[in-house]
């Protein structure tokens, strides 16, 4: 598996963020978590990168995935 840096932009009230983080943990994929409500600068960055305000936003290498989209995450990580 190719190693790419994974960042999850999330917030504590967001159920899809929880599911995304649980899924990544279950797959043993390390990720950095950014709470967009605690880190307004990171939140701005996320909006710039993704062009919208919804979460989770999952950054895998250069790719930006909006929402918990298992197929796209797998493709970006090149896992089955």
């Amino acid at each position: 598996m190719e190693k790419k840096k994974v960042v999850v932009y999330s917030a504590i009230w967001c159920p899809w963020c929880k599911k995304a983080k649980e899924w990544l943990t279950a797959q043993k994929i390390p990720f950095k978590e950014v709470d967009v409500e605690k880190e307004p600068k990171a939140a701005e960055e996320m909006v710039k990168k993704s062009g919208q305000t919804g979460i989770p936003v999952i950054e895998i290498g250069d790719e930006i995935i909006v929402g918990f989209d298992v197929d796209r995450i797998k493709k970006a990580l090149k896992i089955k």
Partner: protein
Amino acid sequence: MDIGSVEQLIAGSKWQGKAAPEIVPGLQWLNSGPLSLKALRGKIVLIDFWTYSCVNCLRTLPHLKQWHKKYSAKGLVIIGVHTPEFAFERDQDNVAAAVKDFGIKYPVVLDSDYSVWKAWNNAWWPRKLLVDAKGVVRYDHIGEGGYDEAEAEIIKLLKEANPALKLPEKEPAQKAERGAVCYPTTAELYCGYSRGSIGNREGYGEERIAEYVDAGQHKEGFMYLQGSWLAKEEYLYHAGKAGHIQIRFRATTVNAVMSADKTCELEVTIDGKPLTKENAGSDVVVEKDRSFVRVKEPRMYNIIRLKRHASREVRLSAKRSFSIYAYTFGSCEGLDM
């Protein structure tokens, strides 16, 4: 209170590693005779603090029902501790009807005087706690979510209590699709004067019927009234004749906790138009040129389900009396409530 201090408060209130306090005797039970944790030693007990009109609790129910089905024969006992938020949730008949409607088969204890809540020093709905075979709390989760983590802990504790146990396969994590996104959303709106905010210039007429005029400019986070309304501590009572309550919201779904002495048909509009099958909630009847919800028993009614998160206005209009306690909102696309 900022999020940091909330987190510190939560961390300080967690029960992991501590002996579970006994369930106060003498309370009413549904689906079971009275249970005690002492008598349940050897079993794994899941305590769920809930109340039947709370949307966050209702979102947790499908998981609890599934675990009851899968693990009750293997040594898991789920106890729903029903601690009421609103006065009507203290009524045993109302809770019994809700337990039946939701298809809850596990034991539910009516904590109407908050004795179990206080013994656990609780402050949150919902809250899931797992007690091991020796009576020690091993898992404590505040709020929705953490379902995979909780199920893994149930399996671990069941196996710990009985290593020879054969368990059904754990369901794979829910398959998500494009559109599984959440957005900043309008916060829960309480309607009574103790916690609510009216946008009308008249303000609350506490404990008296007042006449309101909806001037038509609506800010998010406030309720706007038209007609005769009585403001009570917990709710707003529409005192008959023609009137409405309108709010501006940002959400995917809108629920309202309501009741009526006699069935009341509330006309529902979104941005001035009747709902359609595409945006009506599960409690709304859609007919040609009108949409309405029939309100009677006190409970949460699902009013609106949008496919996409949006800022809209919803108006509930009635010609009869009804009470409204709270609005709750869903923040996510791809989820039902």
